């Protein structure tokens, strides 16, 4: 899932500026030829899986051998919707979103504001916070699994020396959620930090100067200028974070394997299990479609809200 941020107004010189008469043959041919390679791959490998998913969800396809299997109508869907395990997995994805979104948004905003008040060492902060984001998820899991190791891991040692209770990070459900949340925080924090930092740089400096002349202290400047001016960015960071968190798979699969007793298994792992452990391709496709519709509905609602707010602001 990707979203384009228009942080800077795009230059408006465009195809509309070209003369409006019928384009010559060479131009039409060039357009078609230049678009074709991308379009073919796009239709085959991005739109294709969506259509395949819709079709499969009406058949009892298995993933072990090729072929569609038999038409089963809507029975896959009725089974998915009534399967408590599916809704449990859905809830785990939502719970993960609820656990990770607030700290990832609030801490990133706080850190970006702090960074905006510091002149020196910007590159250091950027590198420190963003570096984890370019590390593969399995490497992050290896490092954190070692840091979570009972008795000898770094985090139990630190908690123990401060006198805090040490949760069972891998063996218990609540400990598992803590472990996954901390790891995700470390891994993806830099992304939101960078989005906020870029947005803060776009706030014109004369606003601050005017506020300083009016006697606003740094704290008031942050509260009454920086945070309100970042409203659009916050809305963007929030939706990107929600959508990314709802698609969680790597961290939970690697660190906990959805365990203990599937008590942390997210939807994508549920689909993975039905498709590649029970080999029920058609059923997995139906689960995929239900999940897909939920995600698309959330992002469409966000786009709608944003557009309505933009038009009402313009009017």
């Amino acid at each position, binding site marked *: *899932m990707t979203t384009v*941020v228009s942080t800077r107004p*795009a*230059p408006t010189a*465009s*195809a509309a500026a070209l003369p409006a008469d019928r384009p010559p043959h*060479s*131009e039409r041919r*060039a*357009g078609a030829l230049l*678009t074709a*390679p*991308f*379009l073919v791959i*796009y239709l085959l490998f*991005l*739109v294709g*899986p969506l259509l*395949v*998913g819709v079709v499969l969800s009406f058949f009892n396809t298995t*993933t072990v051998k*090729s072929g569609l299997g038999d038409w089963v109508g809507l029975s896959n869907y009725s089974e998915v919707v009534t399967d408590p395990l599916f809704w449990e997995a859905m809830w785990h994805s939502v719970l993960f979103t609820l656990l990770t979104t607030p700290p990832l948004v609030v801490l990133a905003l706080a850190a970006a504001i*702090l960074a905006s*008040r*510091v002149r020196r060492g910007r590159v250091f902060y*950027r590198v*420190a916070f963003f570096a984890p984001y*370019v*590390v*593969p*998820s399995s*490497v992050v*899991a*290896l*490092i954190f699994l*070692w*840091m979570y190791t009972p008795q*000898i891991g*770094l985090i139990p*040692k630190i908690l123990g020396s401060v006198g805090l209770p040490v949760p069972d990070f891998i063996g218990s459900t609540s400990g598992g959620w803590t472990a996954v949340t901390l790891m995700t925080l470390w891994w993806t924090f830099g*992304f939101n930090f960078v989005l906020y930092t*870029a947005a803060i740089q776009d706030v014109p400096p004369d606003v601050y100067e005017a506020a*300083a002349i009016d006697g606003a202290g740094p704290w008031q400047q942050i509260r009454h200028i920086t945070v309100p001016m970042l409203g659009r960015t916050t809305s963007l960071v929030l939706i*990107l974070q929600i959508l*990314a968190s709802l*698609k969680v*798979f*790597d961290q939970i*699969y*690697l*660190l906990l394997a959805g365990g203990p007793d599937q008590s942390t298994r997210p939807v*994508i792992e549920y*689909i*993975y299990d039905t*498709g*590649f452990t029970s080999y029920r391709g058609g059923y997995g496709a139906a689960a*995929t479609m239900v999940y*897909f519709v939920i*995600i*698309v509905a959330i992002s469409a609602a966000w786009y709608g809200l944003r557009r309505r707010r933009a038009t009402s602001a313009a009017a």
Partner: protein
Amino acid sequence: MTTITQPRPTTTKGAPAVDGAKLFNRLCAVCLTLFALIWLVPFAWAIATSLRSDGSITQNPTSPFAGGWSLHAYSYAWDNHPIGTWYLNSLVISALAVIFTVGFCSMAGFALAFLRYRGRAVVMALVAAGLMLPSEALVLPQFIEYRSFHLLGTFWALILPSIAAPISVFVFQSFFRGIPVALIEAARIDGAGWWRVYARVCMPICRPALSTVAILTFITTWNSFLWPLLVLNQTKSQTIPVGLSSLVSNSNIQYAEVMASSVLGFLPLIAVFLVFQRQIVQGVATTGIK
């Protein structure tokens, strides 16, 4: 957040206010530096562990200097896992993905920005709609489709999804639209064909867009996990993230070796990041790829 209860200072100018702001900024710097140092701890801890021996790790887990340092774990990890092969696979796959994505998507972006042809509006709509499509959620039907095309187990299976990403077309298209039309018309009047305008006039100008797309494609392809896990099931053909994931297990007590493998897994990417950090961060900030 706390609210301000104190009344505004009545003296707006003067030394105390400036000092307060300075003090505040210094406090910010201290907090942020502490925060950033905490963020570096996992890296430092992994490197420190990888240099020790398993015996001294279990005896003195929190004193990284006990027992002396050696590179033994690295040679052990390198010998026991085909890390070199995984690297090569990751490199070939990511490089091919970058080449094809930059090539095909910039062509499409150019056509959408400058050319009038039949179906342009439809392609525009498809690209815009594709931006909202959570393609990662579709792994299962994607898997079945690739199997029927006999693409499973091939590198193409990992390259094609990245070419099909509409975000790259979008980045190129919005950059091309910033190029003045007069420049294109001048090149056309000089007798340049559309291909020449694209390859010789526009591509050299759009270096920033090119590096954004190239770097982000490289990182996402290199780091993708679930899809290569499904598609490449031979140990020899795996990528770095999938290969290293086989070491994830809480019964694995060869801590030094596991950490040496992780260091080998993150070091090259961190090196790439340090070299290109400005472009990478700029690319993320303007496109918001997640």
